[in-house]
Structures are given as C-alpha cells and as structure tokens.
C-alpha cells in the first residue's frame, strides 16, 4: 500500500503543474457564475489537447488508457492551482462505452472526450423525477428514423449541447421499466427547442429544459437494443455518482482554498464557529480525496449500491463547503460580490441532482444492506 505517486504519476503531475502556470483560465468555480459555463467548452478542449482530460478512457476512442489514479492527480492539481474543475462528462462516456456498439462508439465518443462536441442528458421529465421509469417521452419508428416527442427537464448544458442522450418509451404496452430505449439525438434541429432554467443563485447557463416535438433520430443512433434504455439509465446514473468521473473534489478544494484566503484577509472578524465550520469543510474535502483513492483499489459490483454511498458522502462534502460559504456570505465584509452566497445556494442542489439523497438511501438499504424494498 502506498498512496504516493509512482515515478510515472509524478512526472505526469509535474507536467500538468507546469502547464497550469501558463494555461489556467482563472475562471470562477463552476456553478456559481455564468462566466464558467460560457467558457467551459474552451476549457475542456484546452485540457484535452494538452493531454490532461480523458485519462482513464481507452485510446481507441481518444482516451489515454491510464489508471484511475491519473484522474485524481488531475483533480488535485487543478484544485491546487485554483483552476476550474475538469468537465464532468465521464458518466456519459462510461454509458456509451458500456452499451454502445463499436460503430456508435467510434462515431461519438472521440468528440465527447475531446470536447469538440458538447453533450447533455435528457432523462428527467416534469412527471418523471425520482420515478424516472414513468417517463412519457415517446419514440416511434418511421422508416429508418425514430420520431421523438416529449418534454425533458433539469437538463444540464442544454444550451450549448450538440447531442443529447435521451430516454424515450418505444413500447408503450411493455412493463414500466422494459419499454424504454436510449437515443443519441441531434440538438440542432427545429423540433428541439431548449429554454434555460435559472438556478436560485442566478446562474442561467448551466441548466435547461427541452421541448421535443417530432425530432428525428436515425435508427443507427439507438444505443444498444430497443428496450435497453433502463439498463443504460442505471449505468449512467451509477457513474454519475462516481466521484472519479465528476472531479468534484477539485471544485470543493478550490472553494475551501478561496474561503480560507477570504477569511485570512479578514481573520480578526471570524468567530470561532466560523473558523471551525471552515476547518470542518476542509476535513470533509480531505475525506473525499482519500475516499476516492481508497475506492480506486477496490472492485465493486456497480449494482450493489456502493456508488450511492459515494454520492451521499459527496453530498455531505458539498453541504459542509456550502455551509462554510454561507458563514462568509452572512458576514458582509467577506462577500462583496456575492460569490459565497451563490456558492452556498448552489450547494443545495447536490442532494437532488443525479438521484436524490432519499433515492440513494433506498438503494443502499435495498442493495447493500439487503433490507428489502419499503412497502
């Protein structure tokens, strides 16, 4: 057991550290400012071109075939440099690699990894939130195309996406979880309209909803077979809970570093409770860092609910960091531009996105603890 870098890992770390001196775009933390989302695509491409994104994906689709540890090194170094986190597209990549045919992988995954093409995920609907399998969007075959109709919400990055991984019902008569299929839908067609949803902290570039009224998708863009949609959704959501994919550690650590700097500048004004809340946020981010490292050395059946444990832990880190931000926001001298209030308000979303904390607890109880479905 050795948590330290191997010689290769260390060389990679130093190369990235050096690159960041010149190439850190100096953006605010994601999710607290529209400036981040306006330049997220550029940041993704710049990271990829320099060889610092897509570390763990196969080289056959544009990745670097490296162990998971390289993902964490990227997170650590981005955080240490105060750079924005890496793009959080790992869950889509994982889903396409797991369920897509060879031709489909070759067609879509390289652009997704390189950031040349932007993606969003069309899962949730107004009447299908936690109960995702009750979704009503339909896809009907018409020649060599499917025609899709429905309404999707909570769609991150809908505004600048080129493609959408969309779930739609292909067999209305089948059982709830069986008649769903997954498609790769071109966002650039008149039948797909997107409207931003403004988050409570004011950010408008991150989040949106889709109105799909007769969008056409070639049958070649079906992921897996008809009816595989639910399995694909579960793969996607499981890896959406994976701290490796998300790079959230980097975001939290950057926020804590910025909080420490803000409080240090006004050190005399911080109460003991405020100092301790900040130290607790640091402890939580450090827990997440070493937790991700520990998970790298383990192999788990993804259906066992271990991902839900990680998601809950990640949510509690976000909450601790958010509460420390709230302390700074309440004290006017720390928050001239409202950054900390924005950061705090955004932190409330982590216990909802990617499956609510309540859903995660159901999964842990049923799958990991074997307590049986609640009646």
């Amino acid at each position, binding site marked *: 057991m050795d948590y330290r870098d191997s010689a290769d890992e260390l060389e990679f770390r130093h190369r990235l550290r050096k690159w960041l001196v010149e190439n850190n775009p100096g953006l605010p933390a994601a999710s607290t400012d529209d400036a981040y989302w306006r330049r997220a695509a550029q940041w993704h491409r710049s990271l990829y071109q320099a060889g610092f994104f897509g570390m763990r994906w196969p080289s056959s689709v544009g990745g670097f075939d490296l162990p998971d540890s390289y993902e964490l090194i990227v997170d650590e170094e981005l955080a240490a440099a105060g750079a924005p986190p890496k793009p959080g597209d790992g869950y889509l990549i994982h889903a396409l690699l797991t369920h897509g045919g060879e031709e489909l992988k070759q067609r879509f995954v390289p652009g997704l990894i390189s950031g040349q093409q932007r993606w969003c995920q069309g899962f949730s609907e107004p009447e299908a939130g936690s109960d995702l399998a009750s979704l009503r969007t339909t896809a009907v075959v018409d020649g060599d195309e499917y025609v899709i109709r429905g309404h999707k919400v909570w769609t991150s990055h809908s505004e600048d996406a080129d493609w959408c991984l969309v779930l739609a019902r292909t067999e209305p008569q089948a059982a709830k979880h069986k008649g769903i299929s997954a498609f790769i839908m071109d966002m650039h067609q008149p039948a797909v309209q997107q409207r931003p949803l403004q988050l409570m902290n004011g950010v408008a570039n991150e989040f949106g909803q889709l109105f799909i009224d007769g969008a056409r998708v070639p049958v070649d863009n079906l992921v897996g077979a008809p009816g595989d949609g639910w399995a694909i959704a579960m793969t996607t959501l499981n890896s959406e809970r994976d701290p490796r994919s998300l790079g959230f550690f980097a975001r939290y650590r950057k926020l804590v570093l910025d909080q420490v700097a803000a409080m240090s500048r006004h050190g005399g004004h911080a109460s003991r409770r405020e100092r301790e809340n900040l130290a607790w946020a640091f402890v939580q981010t450090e827990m997440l860092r070493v*937790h991700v490292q520990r998970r790298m050395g383990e192999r788990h059946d993804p259906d066992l609910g271990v991902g839900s444990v990680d998601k809950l832990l990640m949510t509690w880190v976000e909450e601790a960091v958010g509460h420390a931000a709230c302390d700074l926001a309440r004290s006017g001298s720390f928050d001239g531009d409202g950054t900390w209030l924005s950061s705090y308000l955004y932190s409330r979303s982590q216990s909802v996105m990617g499956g609510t904390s309540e859903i995660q607890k159901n999964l842990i109880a049923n799958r990991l603890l074997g307590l*049986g479905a609640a009646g």
Partner: protein
Amino acid sequence: MKTEFTAEQVELTRVVENLAQKLGPASVDALSDERRRAALRDGIDAVGILDLRNDEGGPDVASGVELGIVSQIFGRHLVDVPFLGPVVAAETRRLAGIGGDAAESSTVALDPAGRGLAVWEPDGTASPSMAIDVDAGATALGLIPSGEGYQLAVAEVIDIHRPVDLTRAVGSIPAGAPVRPIVGAYLSPSDVERVSVVGQVAVVSDLIGAMGGAHELATDYAKIRKQYGRTIGSFQAVQHALAESVALVEGATSIGRYAAWALDALENDQSRRGAHIAKIYTAGVGRRVCETAIQIHGGIGNTWDCLAHIYLRRVLHSTELFGTGEVHLEKLAQELLLDNTSLTGQVGV
C-alpha cells in the same frame, strides 16, 4: 498510487478477525466471563499482536497500516484485553531507545484530559494522571521534564475501574505518588508528539471498528424485529437511518486508512495532519452512528443488556483519548488560517 492491502495485510486481517470474532464478548454477559477473557489474552499473545510495533518482538516493526487493521478489528469485536495501552507504551519505549520488556511498563499515563503523555514533577512525584487500557498490576509510563525534553519514568497504577468504557479499564496515578525515572531514556518534544500521533491512529481505527460494529448490530436487528407484521428494516425511515450510517462508516474507514498509512510513510507534519483530520472526522461521526444503532433497537436499545451501549461507551472513550475532535478542529482551523499554503502541501510527492 496503490491503495489496496498487500497479501500479508489481507492475511493479518483474516487471522485477527478470526480470533476477535471467536473470543470477543458477543453479549453484555460475556464481559464478565473471565475464562473467555483469559483465552482471548492467550490468543493475542500467541499471534504476537502486542509486539506489532515493538522492535524487540521481531525483525520488523509493523507499519501504521497493520496497527490500524488490528485496532479496527478489536474495536469491531469489543476486544476487552489491553491493546492500545501496550502498543503506545511500546512506541514510547522505542522512541526513547529502550526497546521491549513489556513487564517494565504495560501502558502509558495521559494528562487528566487525555490529550497526551502525562508530564510529572521534576522532583520525581506524579501529577494527577490517567493510565489507559490497564489490567491488574499495571505500571504506566510518563514524562519528567529534563532540559529541552523529557526523561521517561514509570509509576504504579491504582484504582483500576471502568467509568465509561466497559471493555477497557483506566487507572489513576495520584498527585504526589512516587515515579521512577528510567535511566538513559529520553524523549524530545517531537518524540512526545509522535507518541500522540501513534495513539491517534490507533484510537481512530478503534472508533471505526466500534461504530461499524454498532451499525452491523442494528442492521441485523432490523432484519429480524417485526412490527405491523413486517420487519422494521422494511420501513423507509429505518432504512434511511441505517443507510446514512453506512456512508459515515465508509467515509471514516477511508480517512482512517489514509492516516494509518501516513503514520510511517509520510514526514512527521504530514502524518500528524493526517491523524488530526482522521480524529476530527471519526469523533464527529462515531457517536452519531452509535446513537442511530440504539434508536433502531427501540426500547431494548436503551437497556443494559443490549450491546449497543457497549459500542457507544467504547466510542466515547476513544473519542477522548489523544485529543478530542474539538481540540483538533480548533487547532486545524488556526493552522489553515495562519498558513494556507499548508492546504496544498500534502498532495503528490
């Protein structure tokens, strides 16, 4: 970066787990079974666990990872023969350059608040202090100020009792009791801090084991206890409470394992930081997990006969040893604000 256990560590886990599961107290009544306790003590002696970090016990001193493995399993199975005391005493002797001979001093004495090694009077008498994890006839190591550092000394332990933790006894060294300086055994202030860090790693792992044990007890109970014609574990309110405990135990396990590894692998200030952070986290979540376990048991959970309070008591005692979470949190806050470059100093290399 390799964070999995080695084959030897997996084997150590298996051997110690077998022993502790077989001979640890499986019920509150079993705590007073002296035959079981004697067999457990013999089993621990036979495996040589107390010599883990004693350089006269074998060719190599085991690393913090092995210390963490054993401590966690002992916490999980409520092992009620001394381990923490002898291990920290061995570390203290090793740093003072006097090696083994556990008969000389079976444990350590801490200041009354339990933060670190007791510092006694230069005239060779004790100030009030607490010997941890003791058995009958224990003697405890403490410090006498000497120049820039300390001389090691040993004192008789009296008044052996179990005020909080029913699995590990404490004893007293009263004010004015004579203490015997050990010739040639000196510790620097950084050695003394090192002893505390080793103690922290051991109690953190113990906390993780004990909270995990409480959680498993409650989960097993939720699967058999029926109300309204179904097991209580099928109710969502119960499920969510237990699911939260799973995540807390997992987070604690990760942070404790890193601290155990860092103990010997990283420089002193980094291993110290790792241990502090682990103590803050585990102390913060340990009591909560045990309280959930008591709640899941309902009425029976509030009785003497339910093992849940034995876990809680063990967690409360471990939380107090080698600095509480609050002490370390305040210290960490001060360090971060004084020197925020230390935030980034621990990654890589």
